[in-house]
């Protein structure tokens, strides 16, 4: 994985010093809250429902064991012994003191971590495929390109006061595990005439106006990867709406301008930027790629796995993914125990994950946008030992991509923007479907819950989505069906009138009953929905 050199390290330390100075000026009264707010946000520090919240960046979701242990240390020393892994592949802490924040950033900097641009109207942490470098189906590892964009976008002088936040995702396989087209810019690395380049999409997003990003350019040569991004960002910075924060994302600009006109503007800006020396030297990409070379995989390992322990076999079938290297597998640790809080992990659990990564996965783990943790490179012969350690820690839920593998935003329990709680709904649904056989019978079913229309819980992209709303001071939940954040991307549609907290759990059960009754061979919930249509489900829900 990427390793800082002295330059990267100095940049992070400088940022810590700068933020320490800004915090001191705020506490001394030299900055008003209005002036301080964008500065703290650019360091990931929010004022949330209960306290300050700190969001720490995990670039493209990749962590080593030392970093994971540092996350545990932060939880223990400065917070209440836990953290929350987010749909941006980051982690956030809920109980941070402003006066501790500079020290936390200093601690993070010692392990090449930071909270830079994890909030604010700037280019946010760049996300990627959680199986990058391990998946059998990838063209190349997308992370070197994400790293190049990370460097370019860090402290970007022109794009730090954009109309609104800006999110990139970079993938390099046809299977989309990163909801790429639901990003402000989505990039798929592709091959054309033997050369690697970037297919650019722009103007996707969730939030209150969900949109699937249209194709902007089919192939941008790698040599122009950065300048093409610069062109898009400049068009957005100049023309994106600033009169209404709910219409300020690039998706609205692309939509209102029309994709064709938008592309024209971007191409004109891109043409202008030629010769401005925007792109990195080719040697830089090669340098970065050097950090993402395959670890020293053993050869000649057996692909045989002893499946005699039935509980292990269940976990194996559900939470283990095909690896490109014979004898190896990708193992996913579910952060969705029945009745637990989706994405939360205690410091002890983080340390266990760090230990497992160090011992079994070439010192590497990944955060997924569905709030789980991946051990990307494990020997198949070690899977049983890993599973046993997870079982001991009650951390071996075999529910990846099943109905209880719920994405949920923090909701009204933690978030000052929320209208309704998300976590209790996730817990009740997980309880209702707690029998693993029942979940497996329902197959792949992506259930995603947001506590407000900002859609941090990706409800638009759920096979089943749930949106919490405030109805005259009480929590109410709308049900959505038919979304997908994968390569078959689609936006979910609302079924009809909302439900109360128990009603929504019943409603979820009813739609799964319809699926079971209607499905044809091999169909997932989503496939059946797409084939039979909304009416059949509405009928069951509303009679």
């Amino acid at each position, binding site marked *: 994985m990427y390793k800082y050199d002295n330059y990267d390290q100095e940049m992070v330390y400088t940022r810590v010093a700068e933020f320490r100075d800004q915090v001191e000026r*705020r*506490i001394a*009264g030299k900055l008003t*809250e209005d002036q301080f707010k964008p500065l703290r946000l650019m360091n990931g520090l929010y*004022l949330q*429902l*209960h*306290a*300050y919240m700190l969001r720490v960046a995990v670039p493209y979701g990749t962590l080593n064991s030392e970093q994971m242990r540092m996350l545990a240390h932060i939880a223990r020393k400065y917070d*209440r012994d836990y953290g929350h892994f987010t749909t941006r592949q980051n982690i956030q802490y809920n*109980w*941070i*003191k*402003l*006066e501790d924040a500079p020290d936390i950033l200093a601690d993070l900097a010692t392990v090449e971590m930071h909270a830079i641009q994890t909030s604010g109207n700037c280019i946010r942490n760049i996300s990627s495929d959680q199986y990058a470098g391990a998946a059998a189906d990838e063209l190349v590892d997308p992370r070197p390109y994400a790293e190049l964009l990370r460097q370019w976008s860090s402290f970007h002088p022109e794009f730090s006061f954009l109309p609104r936040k800006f999110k990139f995702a970079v993938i390099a396989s046809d299977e989309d595990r990163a909801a790429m087209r639901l990003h402000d810019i989505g990039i798929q690395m592709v091959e054309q005439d033997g050369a690697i380049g970037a297919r650019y999409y722009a103007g996707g997003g969730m939030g209150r106006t969900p949109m699937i990003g249209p194709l902007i350019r089919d192939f941008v040569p790698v040599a122009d990867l950065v300048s093409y991004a610069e062109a898009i960002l400049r068009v957005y910075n100049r023309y994106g709406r600033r009169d209404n924060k709910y219409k300020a994302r690039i998706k609205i600009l692309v939509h209102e301008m029309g994709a064709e006109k938008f592309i024209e503007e971007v191409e004109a800006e891109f043409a202008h930027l030629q010769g401005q020396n925007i792109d990195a030297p080719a040697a830089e990409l090669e340098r970065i790629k050097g950090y993402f070379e395959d670890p020293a995989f053993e050869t000649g390992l057996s692909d045989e796995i002893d499946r005699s322990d039935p509980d292990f076999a269940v976990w194996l079938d559900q939470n283990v993914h095909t690896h490109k290297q014979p004898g190896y597998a990708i193992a996913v640790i579910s952060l969705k125990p029945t009745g637990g*809080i989706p994405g939360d992990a205690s410091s002890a659990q983080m340390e266990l994950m760090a230990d497992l990564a160090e011992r079994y996965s070439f010192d590497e783990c990944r955060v997924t946008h569905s709030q789980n943790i991946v051990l990307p490179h494990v020997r198949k012969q070690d899977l049983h030992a890993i599973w046993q350690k997870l079982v001991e820690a009650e951390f071996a839920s075999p529910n990846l991509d099943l109905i209880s593998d719920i994405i949920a935003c923090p909701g*009204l*329990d*933690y978030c*000052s923007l*929320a209208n309704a*709680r998300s*976590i*209790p709904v996730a*817990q009740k649904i997980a309880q209702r479907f707690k029998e693993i056989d029942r979940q497996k019978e329902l197959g792949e079913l992506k259930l995603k819950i947001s506590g407000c229309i900002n859609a941090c819980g990706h409800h638009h992209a759920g096979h089943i989505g749930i949106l919490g709303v405030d109805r005259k*001071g*009480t*929590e109410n939940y709308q049900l959505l069906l038919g979304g997908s954040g994968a390569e078959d991307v689609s936006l979910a549609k609302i079924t009809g009138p909302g439900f109360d907290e128990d009603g929504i759990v019943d409603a979820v059960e009813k739609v799964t009953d319809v699926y079971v009754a209607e499905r044809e061979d091999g169909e997932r919930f989503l496939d059946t929905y797409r084939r039979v249509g909304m009416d059949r489900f509405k009928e069951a829900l509303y009679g």
Partner: protein
Amino acid sequence: MKILTGNDLKTGDVVWWTGYDWSRHVSDAVPVYDNVTDVIAREIAKRAVSDCYTVEAEKTDDGVLPIHIKEKIRATGPTVRPDLKISPPDPAAGNWVI
């Protein structure tokens, strides 16, 4: 009735106006009236709190609590972590919300 709340500037703690100071416990909150704007301006100016505003509240068996669910959760802590309840200290006190 209305009570006054804010977040402690340095710690971020949710705090409630007691008539002369700030408390972490909503049960210490006192009703405030129209003249509260002076208190708000003064407390922000002296950087005791990063922001502050009034919320509708009522007297309950558990003492003073905000009426709206968001402020209620803000006052008492996340409903899904009863171990982190701020106040009232009774661990069952969050049951109203479930």
